């Protein structure tokens, strides 16, 4: 028994399982989906509209009243990166049902991979490979950001497996506490990693900057920018890249959900003992969800570090883990489309929505009436908290619930609450 099913890469779902059900859409585990042409059209349309965003962004912002609330292209990059992390976290929390309160650790690990392999951090060495937009004389390790993204993904996957193996034996609350611990350890390590037996690994609280920018160098052939940093359309290129990364994440996420591995995750989420009795290897299956979730967190972290051109320990506080978790909960645990919506909405509020709303409120209300201004953005965690509580009370399955959870909502048979909060 050398190869065990859950070990197979997700692409394996094309194995003979489908041959009996390709027509009916219900083969063995890991089914082939039947695409609804309307949905396909919708997805393609949305994708096209998203790609063109930099072109009509200014036109949108010029619309009176509404225009002020339209996020700029730069803000969109941040929203996309956070949404990508939320979709990654959804694999762990939504699919496999493992409450991970330390996802920020993977974000940090990814960001520092970019900081190590695409900056002047290690001045004692000089190694360039595919780096763009910088002088070849620059000391430090400078790999192409594309390579760094992949390395960061691999590195965080390994970190995920290392953290996962000892901790995933725990269930529920215990797992949450341990992951919370790891989420705290990594930023602390980063903060104190400036002198590891005399070796400056992380540059301590100062963080590492600048970090190289992505770009295509000579390969771009004039069509693609040599380096994003020096491009006239810097923001747009970062936006498009973030969008492509998010789309890849979504694609993998949907494929995984419908794979044999995805089904095993859902079985574990539903009933761990029953899943074991069906022959699902628990540890391996859970570790895969953790590792794959970590992969996307790492890639997103590395990309974000490159976009910000820096990695700082202050970016990796616990509240980021919670913030990402809120995106997953708001959107609907396990539902990819829901998590995208949740990620974009909370991402928007976080990046500029709240401060815009605050400014407007001040102009229209607080200033003229009370002669005072309030800073709405400072209340952000109160606001997110209120949103989460409302969601839990009135729509616990999220904005766009996963099919399975929606059924639960409609049929109302499981996990009935002690009393109906919405009737008050």
């Amino acid at each position, binding site marked *: *028994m050398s190869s*065990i*099913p859950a070990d197979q890469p997700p692409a394996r779902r094309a*194995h*003979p*399982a489908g*041959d*009996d*059900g390709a027509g009916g859409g*219900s*083969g*063995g*585990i890991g089914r082939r989906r039947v695409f609804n042409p309307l949905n396909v059209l919708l997805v393609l349309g949305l994708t096209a509209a998203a790609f063109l965003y930099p072109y009509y962004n200014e036109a949108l912002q010029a619309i009176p009243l509404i225009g002020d609330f339209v996020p700029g292209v730069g803000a969109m990059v941040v929203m996309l990166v956070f949404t990508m992390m939320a979709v990654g976290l959804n694999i762990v929390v939504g699919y496999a049902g493992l409450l991970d309160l330390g996802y920020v650790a993977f974000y940090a690990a990814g960001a520092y991979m970019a900081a190590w392999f695409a900056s002047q951090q290690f001045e004692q060495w000089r190694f360039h490979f595919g780096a763009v937009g910088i002088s070849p004389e620059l000391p430090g390790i400078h790999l192409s950001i594309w390579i760094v993204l992949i390395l960061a993904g691999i590195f965080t996957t390994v970190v995920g497996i290392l953290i996962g193996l000892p901790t995933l034996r725990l269930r529920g609350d215990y797992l949450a506490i341990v992951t919370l611990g790891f989420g705290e350890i990594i930023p602390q390590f980063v903060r104190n990693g400036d002198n590891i037996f005399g070796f400056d690994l992380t540059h301590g609280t100062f963080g590492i900057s600048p970090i190289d920018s992505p770009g295509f160098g000579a390969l771009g052939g004039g069509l693609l920018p040599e380096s994003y940093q020096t491009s006239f359309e810097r923001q747009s290129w970062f936006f498009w890249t973030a969008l492509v990364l998010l789309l890849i994440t979504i694609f993998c996420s949907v494929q995984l959900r419908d794979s*044999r591995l995805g*089904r*095993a995750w*859902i*079985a574990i989420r*539903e*009933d761990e*003992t*029953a*899943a*074991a*009795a*069906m*022959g*699902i*290897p*628990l540890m391996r299956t859970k570790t895969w969800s953790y590792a794959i979730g970590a992969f996307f967190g790492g890639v997103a972290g590395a990309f974000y570090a490159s976009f910000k051109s820096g990695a700082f320990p202050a970016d990796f506080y616990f509240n980021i883990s919670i913030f990402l978790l809120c995106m997953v909960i708001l959107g609907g645990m396990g539902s990819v489309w829901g998590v995208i919506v949740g990620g974009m909405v909370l991402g928007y509020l976080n990046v500029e929505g709240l401060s815009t709303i605050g400014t407007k409120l001040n102009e229209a209300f607080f200033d003229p009436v009370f002669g005072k201004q309030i800073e709405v953005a400072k209340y952000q965690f109160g606001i997110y908290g209120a949103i989460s509580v409302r969601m839990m009370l009135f729509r616990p399955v999220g904005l766009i619930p996963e099919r*399975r*959870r929606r*059924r*639960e909502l409609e*049929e109302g*048979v*499981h996990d009935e609450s002690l009393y109906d909060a919405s009737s008050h």
Partner: protein
Amino acid sequence: MSAAQTNGGGGVILRLEDVHTYYGAIHALKGISLDVREGEIVTLIGANGAGKSTTLRSINGLNHPRRGRIVFQGRDITNEPPHEVVKMGISQSPEGRKLFPRMTVRENLEMGAFQRRDRANFKEDVDRVYSLFPRLAERRNQNAGTMSGGEQQMCAIGRALMARPKLLLLDEPSMGLAPIFVEKIFEIVREINEQGTPILLVEQNALMALDAAERGYVMETGRIALADDAHALRQNEQVRKAYLGET
């Protein structure tokens, strides 16, 4: 059926030898020895807490014994993890049924075939389960958690059959069911057995279990108290008093 006969065990497919299993500090099984042979239904009866379910959990790898040996088809499976045990051909309908409540009947059946390598016969097997349990065919797209207890039990047994087991473990299939469903379930248990699958049946409903089985073991506080032909146990004074409610 030839596999077990060739390994010289006299048709014994599963053998437990002096199995001791603990829950933490609690010594739940105090030296269980039993056999299941090819083609037969063996029942394990006894009061609540006697260790019947623990015996099954020891076999399928959810609770590894601290002492003793479990041999399946000549292979020592004492310390194999559950997924390996399933892969070797032991599948079960666990205590309390343990369906995936938010998956449909059909999806539950799919999960039963999780460890199977040969996917080609998948549809055939689903059809076989549907023909055993026509009710499941009607409800194939319903969420398993919304069905009645009897239907859920059918689904749990059907799911276990999807693994094409060489040995089927049934844990209290009659628990919580209306008498009419109990009859029905036992009928199907016999039918499955007649189609060639040996069954280890754990039951509190000793009367029904002994009627269905060829041989039986009576458990008391972690030990095998009696072992005999089902017919003989049925006549046994002690058994009649303790488990069959006769005076």
